[in-house]
């Protein structure tokens, strides 16, 4: 779909052009009309003045007192003309010189208006009047050149057009400014959506124009529901874990307590079964807890959560006095759920702490993807042990024993985020090297 700004902008410019053109046409027409009316009424007055100077003698001969007429009628081609005719006689104004006006007889008391071409390309407005004087019917035709007025009108039209274009431009600029101002809120909402996706905010700002408010409210509502659901299901899973582990813990205690009275075979079987149940529940529950790429809940912060995790591990493995070297950029873009990432890094780092002699190196690089590399100086491992883990859809009970339990949980998580997990031997430290690559978005 076309952008709102382009749509509104072009619509506005087109309608403004239409309005200004319409206005120009209307005003031009009206001014022309007014000017003609004005000239026509003046011509009528001239005709009446001429009428007052006309005399008929006894024979019906018409005479005109030319001294009483306006001097413009005497000047050749002055643009002001008259023609009087009655009883087959006619009197032309001197200004007509050798030219003639069309005579169209009009009945007394009537009036007729017409346009005629005049001398010297003049455009004449001609008013023919029918009168009766001293019992004789007569026609007085008066005409005036419209060109001077038309020139004025044309000049006015030009000025009007120029100022209209200037106003149009000013209005367009003003509208563009107003539009941009109003669309700024949309731009802000867009950038907020982006930061929402990045996990920098949890809710959108509701200080938006009324038109957008339902949309923003709905998004906030949905975010709230998603967050709540995740929270609820995680709590429920936590409770479930708690409930399952209660009898399991007791079983373990009883098995330990009666170690002496049980046969070795029975003890081993029972111990192994409780351990299996425990690890299987752990893995299933942890897999179910994953938020995955649902954008809700708190995001993992490498600057805040990672040091806390390393501190936790240092406390847990305090006696080993492990030296952890952390290499990471000052800012890491990562839209991964906090609890998921803690689970992933926790399990892999725990494995490293468990096997390391003293040194662990954690390297984080963030470009279009997030790369996490964990190396230790422990005994390392036979890579064939891990090829199973890297495969998709490993059966749960295949990986519960020995080395890879925490790593199996980590592998589940990486799969959930469509990332990759690979194992190799560390060149520098000589132990296990785990590489995790996750999509950053």
């Amino acid at each position, binding site marked *: 779909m076309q952008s709102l700004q382009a749509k509104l902008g072009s619509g506005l410019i087109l309608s403004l052009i239409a309005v200004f053109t319409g206005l120009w046409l209307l005003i031009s027409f009206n001014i022309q009309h007014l000017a003609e009316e004005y000239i026509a009424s003046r011509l009528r007055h001239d005709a009446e003045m001429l009428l007052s100077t006309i005399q008929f003698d006894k024979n019906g001969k018409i005479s005109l007192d030319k001294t009483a007429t306006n001097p413009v009628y005497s000047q050749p081609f002055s643009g002001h003309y008259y023609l009087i005719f009655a009883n087959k006689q006619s009197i032309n104004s001197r200004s007509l010189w050798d030219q003639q006006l069309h005579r169209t007889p009009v009945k007394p008391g009537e009036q007729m208006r017409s346009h005629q071409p005049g001398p010297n390309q003049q455009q004449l407005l001609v008013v023919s009047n029918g009168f009766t004087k001293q019992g004789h019917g007569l026609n007085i035709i008066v005409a005036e050149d419209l060109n001077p007025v038309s020139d004025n009108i044309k000049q006015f039209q030009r000025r009007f057009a120029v100022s209209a274009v200037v106003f149009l431009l000013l209005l367009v600029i003003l509208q563009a400014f107003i539009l941009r101002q109003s669309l700024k809120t949309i731009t802000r909402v867009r950038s907020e959506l982006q930061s929402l996706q990045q996990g920098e905010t949890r809710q959108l700002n509701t200080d938006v124009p009324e038109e957008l408010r339902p949309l923003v409210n709905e998004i906030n509502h949905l975010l709230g529901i998603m967050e709540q659901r995740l929270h609820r299901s995680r709590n429920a899973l936590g409770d479930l874990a708690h409930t399952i582990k209660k009898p399991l813990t007791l079983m373990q205690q009883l098995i330990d307590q009666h170690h002496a009275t049980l046969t070795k075979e029975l003890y081993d079987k029972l111990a192994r079964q409780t351990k299996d149940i425990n690890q299987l529940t752990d893995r299933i529950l942890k897999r179910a807890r994953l938020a995955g790429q649902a954008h809700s809940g708190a995001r993992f912060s490498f600057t805040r959560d990672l040091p806390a995790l390393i501190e*936790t591990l240092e406390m847990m493995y305090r*006696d080993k006095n492990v030296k952890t070297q952390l290499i990471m950029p000052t800012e890491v873009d990562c839209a991964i759920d906090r*609890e998921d990432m803690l689970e992933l890094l926790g399990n892999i780092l725990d494995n490293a702490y468990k096997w390391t002699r003293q040194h662990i190196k954690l390297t984080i690089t963030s470009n279009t993807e997030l790369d996490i590399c964990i190396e230790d100086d422990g005994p390392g491992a036979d890579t064939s042990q891990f090829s199973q883990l890297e495969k998709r859809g490993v059966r749960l009970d295949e990986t519960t024993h020995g080395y890879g339990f925490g790593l199996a949980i980590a592998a589940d998580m990486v799969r959930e985020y469509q990332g990759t997990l690979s194992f190799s031997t560390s060149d520098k430290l000589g132990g296990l090297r785990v590489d995790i690559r996750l999509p950053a978005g």
Partner: protein
Amino acid sequence: MRLLLAEDDQDLVATLRQDLEAAGYAVDLADNGVDAEYLGNEAIYDVAVLDLGLPKRNGIEVLRNWRSKGNALPVIILTARNAWHERVEGFKGGADDYLGKPFHVEELLARLTALLHRVSQQPGGNLTASGLILDEERQTLTTEDGHSHKLTGTEFRLLRCLLLNPGKVLSKSQLMDHIYDLDSDKDSNVIEVYIRRLRQLVGSEHIETRRGQGYVFRDN
């Protein structure tokens, strides 16, 4: 050593208490968060085992409240909630160690011993002082001459308490607090009897009596 066990699962408590007492701890029980917080502030405990899923007040809140009041009681969190974010929360809240359920009692006991040694700035392994070696697992004392002596429960508790606080004056009531739980009958004369017995084992020069104050373990 006096231990506060904050755990609401009665069945677990029944077996765990036996194991802890057998290992020489005087155990007091709190089956809810409010009681646990109150007891933990009593300054008579050497260590606390804290379940996070306590009724009335959540374990992590209890821990935070202790720490905000400046109570440095060593705490091991014992919980079925062992997701990593919960562990991080636990350590951030001021826990000294964290053990996920289900667990082996041996592991809990080993962690308790390690924690108590750490708090008293003692090295790991057996408690040693002036040629004496106290094996906390077997509750035996090896003296300078290489002879091994089996200790009774109270002897072991008392000696461990002294060895963990070398050079410090411990009053009779303090010693009582650390070796007996709330439900025991207390008779302060009993302490004198046991001190006399321990002097015979470790040599009277190591346990000094400060009149009106208490006893001091002298490390050479």
